[in-house]
């Protein structure tokens, strides 16, 4: 009986099943309500709503990634937006190459902004992005490599706590400045827009949007399961041990930095994939995605949802963003008051986030242990 000894309260089987069930419902009903139900019906889900939900799912994935490193490993990353944006840029580069001669200037190979800046040929780092498989690999590989190099440097030197948070922020900020430069070859401030199609499917078509939504839901589900599997494994317990007592873990013979590194890299990959799915759904990627404030917002989604519970993080992301969407439309003049107050209230009255409402039965009471 090699079952995991115990899970954190929020990650019980029931919670996981409900979460995945909810995802499945979204992935099945939204397409039907959008495509099959006529627009006149009250049950019809507009493409606008479909795109919104798709975006929320990508944010939920990003929140999951942040929760994995912060909630479980205690690494407060204020730079995860960078991985998200890099994944997005990889997808953006593919989509730009897909435009081909349909650009404003009609150049067969070069994207418009390069034609415009008098670039004569494609820079080397754009090679291969016209092939979807290459782009897919890059969506995961680029964030992973950055996380690997950065994490290796930081964890090896035992940079911890706020110092780590601030240098992740510095990383994201430096990348933002770099991508803002027009000379970098990523379109500067305008970034990439006006995408035409993905794998030959018109991005503006409702069907494509629905497929993207389903892909996002599936990716979120897989990420959730993967994160849950990691958290439930012995490695996951080591990771939580690191969060609670880092040097104790070290004295038990675990190479703390290598655990942190792999978790960080894995989390970066999830963030990258989330970014890649996000870009075709919102239709633009530009350097402001790297803005440090974005990373802070992700941390806030996780905190609102409930740090240290995977589905809590995901639901937090959806909830905060839904609130934001609603307020910016309904109360455009005062929505910052509402959102700001919400953050304060959640912190004061729900210290464990919205998931803290769940009674902490598992933590408070002895539980029969299966390992007999």
């Amino acid at each position, binding site marked *: 009986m090699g079952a995991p000894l115990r899970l954190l309260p929020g990650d019980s089987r029931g919670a996981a099943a409900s979460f995945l069930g909810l995802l499945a419902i979204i992935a099945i009903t939204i397409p039907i309500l959008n495509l099959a139900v006529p627009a006149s019906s009250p049950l019809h889900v507009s493409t606008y709503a479909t795109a919104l939900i798709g975006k929320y799912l990508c944010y939920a994935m990003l929140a999951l990634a942040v929760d994995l490193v912060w909630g479980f490993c205690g690494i407060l990353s204020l730079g995860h937006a960078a991985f998200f944006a890099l994944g997005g840029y990889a997808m953006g580069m593919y989509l730009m190459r897909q435009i081909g001669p349909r650009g404003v200037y009609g150049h067969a190979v070069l994207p418009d902004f390069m034609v*415009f800046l008098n670039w004569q040929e494609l820079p080397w780092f754009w090679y291969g992005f016209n092939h979807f498989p290459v782009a897919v690999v890059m969506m995961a590989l680029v964030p992973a490599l950055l996380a690997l190099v950065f994490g290796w440097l930081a964890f090896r030197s035992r940079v911890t706590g706020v110092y780590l948070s601030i240098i992740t922020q510095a990383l994201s900020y430096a990348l933002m400045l770099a991508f803002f430069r027009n000379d970098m070859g990523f379109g500067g401030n305008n970034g990439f827009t006006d995408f035409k199609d993905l794998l030959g499917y018109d991005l503006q078509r409702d069907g494509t949007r629905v497929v993207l939504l389903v892909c996002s839901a599936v990716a979120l589900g897989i990420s959730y399961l993967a994160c849950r599997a990691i958290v439930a494994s012995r490695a996951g317990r080591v990771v939580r041990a690191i969060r609670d007592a880092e040097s104790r873990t070290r004295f038990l013979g675990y190479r703390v930095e290598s655990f942190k590194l792999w978790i960080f890299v894995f989390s970066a990959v999830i963030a990258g994939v989330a970014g890649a799915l996000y870009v075709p759904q919102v239709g633009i990627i530009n350097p402001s995605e790297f803005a440090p404030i974005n990373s802070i917002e992700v941390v806030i989604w996780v905190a609102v949802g409930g740090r240290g519970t995977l589905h809590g993080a995901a639901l937090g992301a959806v909830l905060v963003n839904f609130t934001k969407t609603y307020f910016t439309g309904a109360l455009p003049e005062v929505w910052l008051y509402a959102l700001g107050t919400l953050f304060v209230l959640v912190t004061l009255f729900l210290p464990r986030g*919205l998931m803290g409402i769940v009674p902490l039965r598992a933590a408070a009471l002895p539980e029969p242990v299966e390992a007999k």
Partner: protein
Amino acid sequence: MKLKQFCVAAGLALAALATPHAVLAQATIKVGVLHSLSGTMAISETTLKDTILMMIDEQNKKGGLLGRKLEAVVVDPASDWPLFAEKARQLLERDKVAVVFGCWTSVSRKSVLPVFEKNNGLLFYPVQYEGEESSKNVIYTGAAPNQQAIPAVDYLMKEVGVQRWVLEGTDYVYPRTTNKVLEAYLLSKGVKAADISINYTPFGHADWQTRVAAIKRFGSAGRKTAVVSTINGDANVPFYKELANQKISAEDIPVVAFSVGEEELSGLDAKPLVGHLAAWNYFQSVSTPANKEFISKWKTYIKKPNRTTNDPMEAHFIGFNLWAKAVETAKSTDVDKVLAALPGLETPNLTGGVAKLLPNHHLTKPVYIGEVRADGQFDVVWKTTGTVPGDAWSDFLPVSRDTEADWVTLKCGNYNTKTKVCSGQNYK
């Protein structure tokens, strides 16, 4: 289990998104207002939101349009570019607005462009921009580079005798394009490459000491030097403050800006800046009856006697009037019909003359050069004799020299006159 409550909450949320907005739409004509009310761009865009609300108010007092009242749908895209696209989708798909007035930055316009083209919406874009675009669904009521930058440089070259040029900009598309156009133009006028210095700084650049010192050095070579500034937004105030402190007066090295107007000047102490220049199609100080009336209406509407007016506000004024006229001509708010009625329509400018909508969806505009006064207003020191037609595709750039936009006869936003092919963003 609390999760159930979540499912319920999520379900409610979905329902809220899915339910079509109150189907009272027949009673009113909805006008979308897509300007950032928070974030970095709120500083410029909030005024434009108020301008449109004022215009709608006025129109409703006159009985609305086609016998229906106008209703503003205001959203806040919060200076967040993906959010612009999302809000545009909301306005077009959910709120079913007849027209949208909005955007300031080029990137926000680029972000919403596919949404407008897909949903066949209508956007009035009121800000001077870099050109190189003409969409079927966008009416560009701000200046193209040939309606602002080129006349300004002409003025400096001919009237002021400037021989050396610093093109100082924020690193994004508008300055890059404008400077490219200007560089090509200056070189064509016989200015040596060594006498042109181009430099870019990041957004929100706050410490200008080094750059201003460099400009001072560049300008101390003994020949008349001017700075053509395409510095954006927040970076302007520290730039001008540093200019004043390093004692670069307009009499020595004048700075001509394309993004600094009355509203920007109201946010800083203008006294040390007296004499620096701006090129616009409108100045509050231009004294015409129409302008006086507009200014007094604005001050009454906004309830602040010291609020200024500016060029993008006039662009919205023109844009709104053009749209209203087109709706009345077409007797419908249907976008296709309005778009068909729009080209060729004329409406008076606030500063005199008429704005005519060209087939390329740009306007004819007068160009004014103003010098900053101590009170934050501008003295017009030069203006074009007539109006200048907006050019969507610059004639000074090799990539777009042969491109033309014409939505009346060619029905194309970028038609290559050499290859006789219509390609690009509206390619089907």
